[in-house]
């Protein structure tokens, strides 16, 4: 494929694919762990998304600009080190400026390292494409991750705690759905989310067996 001829088209396609058609969570079911674990409060979801987008963009720039220098055999280790370095930065920034969020997210911040979205994009896209496309891809995938996390978090926070970003939004006689705050609720919400998005986007169910 000649990238120079279709520069604009390719860029647009990259974004569209990342945000909707090949949505990382609903289509490929990647990065679900953090989407489940951190999505019961909107502020945690925002912090998590910001962290993931930052690490994704950083990784895309580093990996795609070094893609010709990285030997194929050790590429996985190189992704890991790049991602781990990015996550260390995120962790330290959160600890310094947002101690309460850092406290609430606890060990889930370092687990950004093993968020499959970042590894997946590095292997599928960054290693083969120049930096300008890789950044677009990173942003598109990061945004797709962020809006999914936000939708789930808004739903869970309103129904489970009756609040939105800590402000009470439900009527006074509202009974909290405690189950949504618990881990089990996360599974139900994301299961229904997958159901809706996969039906709307017309993604074929995986083959049996």
């Amino acid at each position, binding site marked *: 494929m000649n990238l120079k001829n279709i520069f604009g088209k390719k860029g647009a396609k990259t974004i569209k694919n990342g945000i909707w058609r090949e949505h990382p969570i609903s289509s490929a079911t990647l990065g679900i762990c953090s989407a489940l674990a951190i999505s019961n409060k909107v502020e945690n979801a925002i912090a998590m998304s910001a962290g993931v987008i930052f690490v994704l963009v950083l990784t895309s720039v580093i990996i795609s600009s070094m893609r010709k220098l990285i030997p194929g055999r050790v590429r996985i280790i190189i992704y890991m080190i790049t991602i781990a370095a990015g996550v260390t930065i995120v962790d330290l920034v959160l600890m310094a400026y947002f101690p309460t969020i850092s406290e609430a997210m606890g060990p889930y911040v370092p687990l950004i390292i093993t968020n499959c979205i970042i590894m997946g994009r590095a292997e599928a896209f960054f290693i083969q494409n120049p930096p300008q496309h890789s950044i677009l891809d990173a942003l598109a995938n990061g945004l797709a991750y962020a809006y999914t996390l936000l939708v789930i978090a808004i739903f869970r926070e309103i129904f489970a705690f009756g609040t939105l970003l800590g402000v009470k939004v439900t009527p006074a006689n509202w009974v909290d759905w405690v189950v949504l705050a618990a*881990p089990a609720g996360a599974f139900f919400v994301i*299961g229904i989310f997958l159901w809706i998005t996969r039906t709307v986007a017309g993604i074929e169910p995986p083959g049996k067996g």
Partner: protein
Amino acid sequence: MAENSLLSIFFTALLIQNVALFYLLGMCPFIALSRSMKTAIGMGAAVIFVVGLTSSANWVMYQLLDMTGALILQYIVFIIVIAACVQLVEMIMERFFPALQASFGIFLPLITVNCIVLFISLKVTTVDGLSYIQALVYSLSAAAGFWLAMLLVAAIYEKLNLIGNVPKGLQGPGIIMIITGIMALSFMGFSGMV
């Protein structure tokens, strides 16, 4: 039972705070492999083995980093140790146990990016600060808990597939999430056991 006795650590990690159902971790392989009992068994065994190995190695690494005051490098070191261990296990198995390699070797590379491996390493060092024996018991029972959860969900999914009236959009990951949710609800019944 005493707060930090080995038995209470065992039950907490295996049932009450199950890594898959309480901490919601390891979901990528969970979804991909809960589709059949056979792959679930293979992956579970590989996870238990690798987790035992890496969390012991990382426990030692953590003490070294702590002594030298280089804790800022913790994440990078942990992930390299995990990647190296997995690579090593793969090579040893290929050389000496080809039969074993054929049965669960394909799951090994996946484990490097499995969040529960990194999570357990972090949990026994930074978060809980356990002693070596406690860390080993915690790691093995947490990994066994992951195996247990995956097996239960895979069994239900296989049965459900035989009936086969799951709505189209819900097939695959969707229904696995719902099954896991119900499983998580029932595991909540274990809380307060220790």
